[in-house]
């Protein structure tokens, strides 16, 4: 019998769906088949993108993928991180063009239908913003706030090399300045060797056409390099013999060192890992064995190992990697540990195929000073309190 007490009533309502009772959804018909495009359960309220902490202006801004809510290595398209400079343009693909000009034999303008007709490939790659995260406090509460400007998908597109051969690359070509069609018309200069290696002109993301937020109808994709170079809403490729020294590779995306000089052309996103479960705002609710889970990646190629410490970095043991390990893509790792209710700090440390070992924040600051801002691939500690609550281990 339901009491007038709302707490008891809610409990009784909940119990009505528990065994031995047959839940209401088992005693009725559900929603119709063939919704043209599905969406997540309304009960999934936490799996959303959020504006990066502190940002207010929504046109030049970034949003985080909710890494602490996700599993595996594929980021679902609706939760892919964003970094925009003039908001998200809504481009009509029939009227969008890609212009390829400069040091080519045949300067060309392509329609989107034409781009799709070239031979394509469908590799899986991560994409990461170089400012993920900043070196300075405040430090994020969740995995998303700490390093949520990283995502991973299967990209389909034509190798840029194929387009360059089609246009006929002149031998003086050394760089390509790539431009986007949004209101920022952002440009970056890509070395020609990289262009002829694995750079793609992409039109699909996890099977379907690119999302507007990821550059619909086409984007450049520069595997393993800082995300800013993967120009969205790509509209122009200017083959040159000199770099543009555009704003995004001078005023931004250069790394200011302790002596006041700055690194330029710091392209590669170095080897990195992040425990996503348990991570900030999660809570362990029992003593016993738990599985630590996370992601690792390297712009230099494959992850070869991820080690876990559950004692603040004093001892480490190898985690298991999800196969197949893919070059320049996220790799999932797993590690079992026993929690007996004590306070402890857990962290992960990745190694990539070059032998490079993910550094600590102290090591990065030692090498670069405190104001380099970009390329923070530091080991990320999470603290488990005696209550089981997990917070950022960096304060």
């Amino acid at each position, binding site marked *: 019998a339901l009491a007038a007490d709302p707490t008891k009533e809610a409990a009784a309502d909940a119990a009505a769906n528990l065994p031995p009772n047959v839940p209401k959804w088992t005693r009725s018909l559900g929603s119709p088949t063939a919704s043209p495009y599905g969406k997540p359960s309304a009960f999934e309220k936490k799996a959303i993108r959020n504006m990066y902490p502190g940002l207010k*202006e929504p*046109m*030049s801004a970034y949003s985080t993928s909710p890494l602490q809510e996700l599993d595996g290595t594929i980021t679902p398209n609706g939760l892919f991180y964003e970094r925009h400079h*003039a908001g998200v343009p809504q481009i009509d693909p029939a009227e969008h063009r890609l*212009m*390829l*000009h400069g040091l080519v034999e*045949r*300067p*060309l*303008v*392509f329609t989107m239908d*034409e781009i799709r007709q*070239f031979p394509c490939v469908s590799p899986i790659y991560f994409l990461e913003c170089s400012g993920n995260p900043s070196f300075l406090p405040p430090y994020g509460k969740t995995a998303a706030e700490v390093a949520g400007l990283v995502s991973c998908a299967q990209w389909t597109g034509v190798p840029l090399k194929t387009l360059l051969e*089609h246009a006929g690359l002149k031998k003086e070509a050394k760089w390509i*300045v790539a*431009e986007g069609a949004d*209101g*920022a*018309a952002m*440009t970056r200069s890509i070395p020609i060797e990289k262009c002829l290696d694995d750079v793609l002109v992409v039109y699909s993301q996890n099977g379907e056409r690119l999302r507007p937020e990821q550059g619909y109808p086409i984007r450049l994709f520069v595997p393993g390099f800082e995300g800013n170079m993967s120009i969205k809403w790509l509209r*122009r490729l200017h083959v*040159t013999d*000199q770099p*543009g*020294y*555009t*704003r995004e590779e*001078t*005023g931004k995306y250069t*790394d*200011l060192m*302790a*002596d*006041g*000089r*700055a*690194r*330029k*052309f*710091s*392209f590669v996103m*170095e080897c990195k890992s992040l425990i996503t479960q348990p991570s900030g705002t999660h809570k362990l609710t029992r003593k016993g064995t738990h599985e630590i889970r996370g992601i690792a990646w390297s712009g230099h190629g494959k992850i070869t190992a991820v*080690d876990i*410490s559950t004692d*603040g*970095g*004093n*001892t*480490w*043991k190898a985690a298991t990697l999800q196969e197949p390990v893919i070059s320049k893509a996220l790799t999932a790792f797993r590690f079992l540990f026993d929690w007996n209710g004590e306070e402890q700090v857990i962290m992960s*440390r990745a*190694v990539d195929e*070059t032998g490079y*070992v993910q*550094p600590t924040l102290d*090591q990065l600051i030692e*090498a670069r000073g*405190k*104001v380099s801002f970009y390329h923070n691939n530091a080991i990320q500690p999470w603290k488990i309190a005696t209550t089981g609550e997990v917070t950022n281990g960096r304060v």
Partner: protein
Amino acid sequence: SVIHAQQAHDFKGLGSPAGHEQIAGWNIDVFPDGTGLPDGQGTVALGEKVYKTQCMSCHGVNLEGGLGPKLVGGQGSLASDKPVKTIGSYWPYATTIFDYVRRSMPFQSPQSLSNEDVYSVTAYLLSKNNIVPADTTLDAKSLAAVKMPNRDNFYVDDRPDTKNERCMADCLKK
């Protein structure tokens, strides 16, 4: 049709020739050596007018910033504990200012300025940063000749720059 393994592939029909006018309409890249700078010129005086009417609402009456970044200051601060990176203190090339303003400013109506306006407001910004005199007339040649205070302070990425070891035990004692 028979499939020839060695036959050259024929994608000839893909893409239309890009005509000079088409390219000229879209190619707004400006390089440090001045390549890409258009005909025309501008003055600091005209630039101040442009700034006050089209930029000040976001970048501040004294270029101190607001919705948009600060556009003056910070020179000599880069090696300090509190470096301030602005177009004057940090950017290596003045041509980048022209390139960036022409393609993306004003923020809400990009690519609306005339070439004269871009030369002018660039001259104004450079003068407010004490990089060119207040009576400057800026054109392609003089803009490319501007040497920014921070031009020589960039060097190519030399990472990796950390040497963490894959220590497995007693790591905190090391």
